[in-house]
């Protein structure tokens, strides 16, 4: 039994009749023909299905389509404006971050969410911000460099930390602790 939901996808109002047990990922790919967002692990580990929902990056495989009623969603297809690429997309092209490309929509969307939140992240913040996006082709380096490049191009560096910055400057050992700030 489908439910009709109304939502905004990439700036456009959409109306979808969705089955309750279909995930947001399935709805985007199968009902809205937005196949840029990918299916891989389906357990929220790989991030290939990452989209932005109301400003936050989420694994769309773990969200039901019906939960997106009234939400504003951004997928990889919504990063560019017309033929103007998002600076992240430009940067990914420049550094050659995309190899097979399958993880790239998720990486881009996660990076977009990260930069929207922390416009000038440290390398550690980038590594953590994208830790939920697995890549099997790359050493991740060119992806990280692309995010740094896009961030560097975004105006001058902010003099004060962004008020909504998530300050998890976690050291890189498994039992390390967050330094409270």
């Amino acid at each position, binding site marked *: *039994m489908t*439910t009709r939901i109304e939502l905004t996808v990439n700036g456009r109002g959409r109306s979808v009749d969705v*089955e*309750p*047990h*279909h*995930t947001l990922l399935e709805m985007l790919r199968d009902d809205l023909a937005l196949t840029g967002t990918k299916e891989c692990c*389906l*357990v*929220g*580990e790989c*991030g290939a299905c*990452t989209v932005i929902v109301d400003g*936050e*990056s*989420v*694994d769309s*495989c*773990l*969200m*039901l389509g*019906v*939960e997106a*009623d009234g939400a504003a969603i951004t997928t990889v297809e919504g990063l560019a404006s017309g033929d103007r690429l998002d600076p992240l997309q430009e940067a990914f092209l420049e550094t050659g971050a995309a190899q097979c490309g399958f993880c790239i929509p998720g990486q881009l969307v*996660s990076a977009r*969410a*990260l930069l929207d939140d922390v416009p000038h992240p440290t390398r550690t913040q980038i590594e*953590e*911000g994208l*830790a*939920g*996006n697995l890549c099997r082709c790359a050493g991740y380096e060119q992806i990280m460099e692309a995010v740094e490049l896009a961030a560097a191009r975004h105006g001058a560096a902010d003099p004060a930390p962004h008020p*909504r910055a*998530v*300050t*998890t400057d*976690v050291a*890189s*050992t*498994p*039992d390390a*602790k*967050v330094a*409270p*700030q």
Partner: protein
Amino acid sequence: MRTFDYERPDMLADALALMADADGAARPLAGGTDLIIRIRDGSIRPRTVVDVKGIAEFSRDIRIEDGWLRIGARTTMTDLLRDERIRRDYAALAEAAAYVGSVQIRNRATLAGNICNASPAADTAPALLALEARVVAVGQRGRRVIPLDDFFVRSGVTTLAPGELVEAIEMPVRSGRRGSVHARRTRRRGHDLASVTLAVTIDEDGVTRVSYGSVGPRPVLAIDDTGLLADPAAADDAVRGRLDELFAAAAPSPTSMRASPEYRLAMLRVMGLRAVQDARKRIAS
């Protein structure tokens, strides 16, 4: 995934009625990061999924009320991380929340959902136990408060009555100084289910709370009120000995594929000493 009915009540009374009427066949949906996986793998087959995120009485905020820091049912891990009071005064919880999955998971996973899922490896559980948390549960018969140590039973099982929902999780606001630390053991640095979780809080009055998880069917809280663990001058060997006493309830599963019982116990001890040392530094600073 098998199909189910989806409801998104906007009033608590309606939500509770749905839960009660379903007679066990309804499941609450908060962040979905556990529930969706289990519905997909068939380990849970609900007839109805009740989305709690629309309930007006369920908040997503963190506020202080009557000496308690109250975390609403809809509060996510990311919300916790962004809250300055959590980071400053409940550091172990902030650290635990920072390790739940990835950013994408933390943006959806709720604290309430994490404890209701009652995985023995739940990252936030030891931190909450060490921070003296309690659960505000609500059902058709009304509200009740459950100390968190009375909440966990074993993997997947809590003392919530059928039809009850978690409305909030509260931790006391303490006036004195406290150093709190969270630690975990994983197979890689990237997000992973923990094979040992641990939290330590040391209070000004010398009371140390040690809570550990993933080494038994539920997280365990042990308290040292001898002052030994809190004492910066205490010798490491003495600390280890006292910790061993507190770790007596650890009983790691022999069949887990994540880590052997021997390794878990050894790591518990290593992490215990390191966490106590760090908690001492934090209370001093």
